């Protein structure tokens, strides 16, 4: 099982990095070659949502079963999810600098993305604020569930209702609906890189989570002995 996602991560990401950079892309005004950032920027948001969902599942599992591994897994997933969020933000700002002319364009999706990073930042503040282990696990699990549900308006409702967004998928941008799937009328050549890139990045996220989880387990073992 672990071997599967490791292989997927390595193969798909090597492919996405090489073919993503040299493969053919449609020529769009203003976007030009920066359209290739699609392979790196969008998978970050897929990764963020999927990893946050895993974290949420483990928090629910912890509340139901009370196993401390579930709590450590929830924390590890939340951490990788936040890392993906920060990277998505960074790649987005780089893209915005080239196409919109500014690092921070005040776009509704930038605002909501920043808010969702703040939500998860608070999760780690809360964890560090509680010393007693079981108490920390339980309170953090409760907050994590709330945090996941607060992602829904931030990432899926507010951006799509905004009167104006520079991102595709806003009501003012001409392509109403899901921002990821109509993106740039994603042509078939790009789809061949885009989907493998998403699976590759997500698998890398799983890999990172697993490594972090193993470090956590070792730390706890060391603390107990």
């Amino acid at each position, binding site marked *: 099982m672990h071997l599967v996602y490791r292989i997927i991560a390595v193969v798909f990401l090597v492919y996405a990095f090489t073919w993503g950079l040299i493969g053919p892309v449609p020529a769009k005004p203003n976007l030009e070659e920066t359209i290739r950032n699609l392979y790196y920027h969008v998978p970050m948001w897929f990764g963020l949502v999927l990893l946050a969902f895993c974290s949420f599942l483990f928090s629910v599992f912890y509340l139901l079963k009370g196993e401390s591994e579930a709590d450590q897994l929830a924390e590890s997933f939340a951490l990788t999810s936040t890392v993906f969020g920060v990277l998505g933000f960074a790649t987005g700002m780089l893209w915005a600098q080239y196409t919109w002319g500014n690092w921070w364009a005040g776009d509704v999706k930038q605002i909501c993305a920043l808010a969702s990073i703040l939500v998860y930042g608070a999760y780690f*503040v809360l964890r560090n604020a509680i010393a007693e282990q079981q108490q920390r696990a339980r*309170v953090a699990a409760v907050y994590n569930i*709330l945090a996941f*549900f607060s992602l829904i308006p931030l990432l899926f*409702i507010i951006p799509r*209702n905004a009167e104006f967004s520079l991102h595709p998928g806003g009501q003012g941008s001409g392509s109403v609906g899901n921002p990821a799937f109509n993106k740039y009328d994603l042509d078939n050549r790009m789809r061949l890189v885009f989907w493998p890139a998403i699976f590759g990045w997500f698998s890398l996220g799983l890999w990172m989570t697993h490594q972090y989880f193993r470090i956590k387990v070792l730390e706890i073992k060391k603390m107990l002995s």
Partner: protein
Amino acid sequence: MIQEVKQLLRKEWTVEWRQKYAIQGVFWYSLTVVFLCYLAFGSLKPFVWLSLFWILSLFTAVNAITKSFVGESKAGMAYFYTLFSSKSVLAAKIIYHWLLSLFLSLVLLGFYSLLLGSPVQKYDLFFTGIFLGNTGLAVALTFLSAISHKARSGASVMAVLSFPVLIPTILLGIKISKMGMDGLPWSTAMHEMGQISGIILLTGALSFLLFPYLWRD
């Protein structure tokens, strides 16, 4: 359950009235802060007027609600849980904070309009925005104050936890009350009212589902 909630509400009210400093403190806090804004800004453009009002409203609500669970001692809380179900405790806290935050924002609005004037054209829609926004604030803040009470680290954790989670509620509240301020018809605000009600219901449902886990010490 309703009986229990009633008793708990009476208890909240008695405690509040016995130590008047809390409610008085928030009252004078809102007067001072409005006075400070008046001195600092003089007069305001309508949109700035509205945004500033919501920010003051948010801080007043956070100030008033943070102390809710912090004020309870551990032994006192344990005693309550032998008497009442956790759902009634949460329901009573939410109802109490809801009324309190509505009252405080009306007081705030009174001072604010007195000193800084009021550009509002359509009061019914404007008050609906304030009503829904404050309902959302009260529900979310009550639950978050229960969480931050468990962290036992005072107001800073509360602020870090609550502000990002409250962003959608505040934004929608501002949007609806702005429509009221500009005198737009009710039909324009329906979409936003639906969304904010959805958020309130979702937060409320989550609070009731998760609250028992917070107290299983």
